[in-house]
């Protein structure tokens, strides 16, 4: 999922303090799974914001709504009945959702309530770790299912570097050395000879290097 973390309260109160009434919009997908911007978090943030402004003696109202997701126009459309009753929108979705709301409701200020972090997976309850960087040219088939772009601190395609220590990355003992993981997997699969192949320099055009990307499905696009 796309993971995110709520922004600090002082940053959020700065964003919304010029307004008397805001629409606090949650998202039922990724940010719900990583407990950053789902229905529950909307409730908590709403309460915290209201209490903050009550303390300041400033009138402040919060309208709460959680959409199925914010990255599809059909769902963003559901805000139409509410949008004119508020002065601004605070979205708890990832950057994708915030932008779609801003795109649809051009005259309404929209603010992000979370910092979008990475594409990752749950390692265990309450712990999410980075897994994918969307490089656009997946090599997981030859690295035993472990991504060297997202999980190696130096994104080496022919790792490990000389700093790998006891299976951990030199920058942080809490970070696994991706190439140790890759090697262990290749061994377990009986494919250690794959390691001997030199993977050539990457063409970054399939990734961010080629500019903002788009996928167009001719069979689906109207």
């Amino acid at each position, binding site marked *: 999922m796309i993971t995110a973390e709520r922004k600090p309260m002082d940053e959020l109160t700065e964003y919304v303090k010029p307004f008397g009434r805001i629409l606090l919009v949650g998202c039922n997908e990724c940010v719900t799974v990583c407990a950053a911007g789902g229905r529950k978090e909307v409730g908590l943030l709403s309460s915290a914001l209201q209490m903050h402004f009550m303390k300041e003696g400033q009138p402040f109202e919060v309208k709460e709504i959680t959409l199925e997701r914010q990255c599809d126009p059909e769902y963003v459309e559901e805000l139409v009945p509410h949008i004119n009753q508020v002065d601004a929108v605070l979205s708890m979705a990832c950057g994708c959702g915030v932008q779609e709301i801003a795109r649809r409701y051009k005259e309404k200020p929209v603010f992000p309530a979370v910092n979008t972090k990475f594409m990752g997976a749950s390692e265990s309850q309450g712990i999410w770790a980075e897994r994918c960087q969307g490089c656009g040219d997946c090599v997981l088939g030859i690295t035993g299912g472990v991504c060297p772009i997202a999980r190696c601190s130096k994104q080496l395609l022919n790792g490990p570097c000389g700093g790998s220590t006891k299976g951990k990355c*030199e920058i942080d003992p809490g970070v696994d050395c991706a190439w140790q993981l890759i090697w262990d997997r290749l061994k377990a699969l009986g494919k250690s000879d794959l390691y001997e192949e030199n993977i050539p320099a990457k063409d970054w055009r399939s990734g961010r290097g080629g500019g903002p990307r788009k996928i167009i499905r001719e069979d689906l696009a109207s």
Partner: protein
Amino acid sequence: MKTESTLEKILAAGHLAVTSECGPPRGALPAKIKEKAEMLRGFVDAVNVTDNQTAMVRMSSLAACIFLRQMGLNPILQMVTRDRNRLAMQSDILGAYSHDIDTMLCLSGDHPHFGDHAMAANVHDVDSIQFVDMVRTMRDEGKFQGGEPIDGPPKMFIGAAANPFADPFELRVARLAKKVKAGVDFIQTQCIYNVDKFAKWMEGVRDRGLHEKVYILAGITPMKSAGMARYMKNKVPGMDVPDELVKRIAGVPKEKQADEGIKICIETIERCKEIEGVNGFHIMAIEWEQKVPEIVEQAGLLPRPSVN
């Protein structure tokens, strides 16, 4: 002979080569690098000039190498993949060769986490193995990495680093094999304190016949004190410092520890001379460059051969 590099000539002639290193200054004043380099004249065959070592900004290796060349020394241009994309790298290689810098070392580089600009973008457009392949393509095929021809290809003698002491050990020979496949000409290893482990790695290297395809320079760094020994043992990733070594230095009074460190250093060199496949030594005397002449002399590596 692939290049005009003095280091290549010395190694090809069968001598034990000796290299050392210099770190450029943390500013734009050239005097310091010239001083350090001058100390090494006549004692080493070539001098590595580091590239933003430990991810701390220093005068560029390329600029410092030019100064060394002007002094009549043989600089080895170190370049890391951390700070530049492939355009900048190829561009700097052309620039270096235009100033008669004909030997280089291709490295990944320490992570910005360790340096003074932890907030910087970590480039790694290519990794060290792809880097070696790129330089070899420039030299032997006269082509840029993108495929276009080079008008005046750089004839670089290509080096890389090897660390027999990093984990996982079972991969360390295979990683050298990958660099050899990519076209590396010579290797400098991480500094050796655990000679037995280094010997074991060399055994693996010889088993695969790699010692006949690449020149190997054993990395040597003298210990200054017990404190330094402990620091390197515990705080530096990819370093193997045996307990006996720390005990040995710590067992000697403080004023005598530096001398003991030099003694150990010479002993290490002598032991490595006996290991088949070792073609020379890379002496890294960090913040102790003035000791290099003494070490080279006591290790019986003088006079340095002259080749044309």
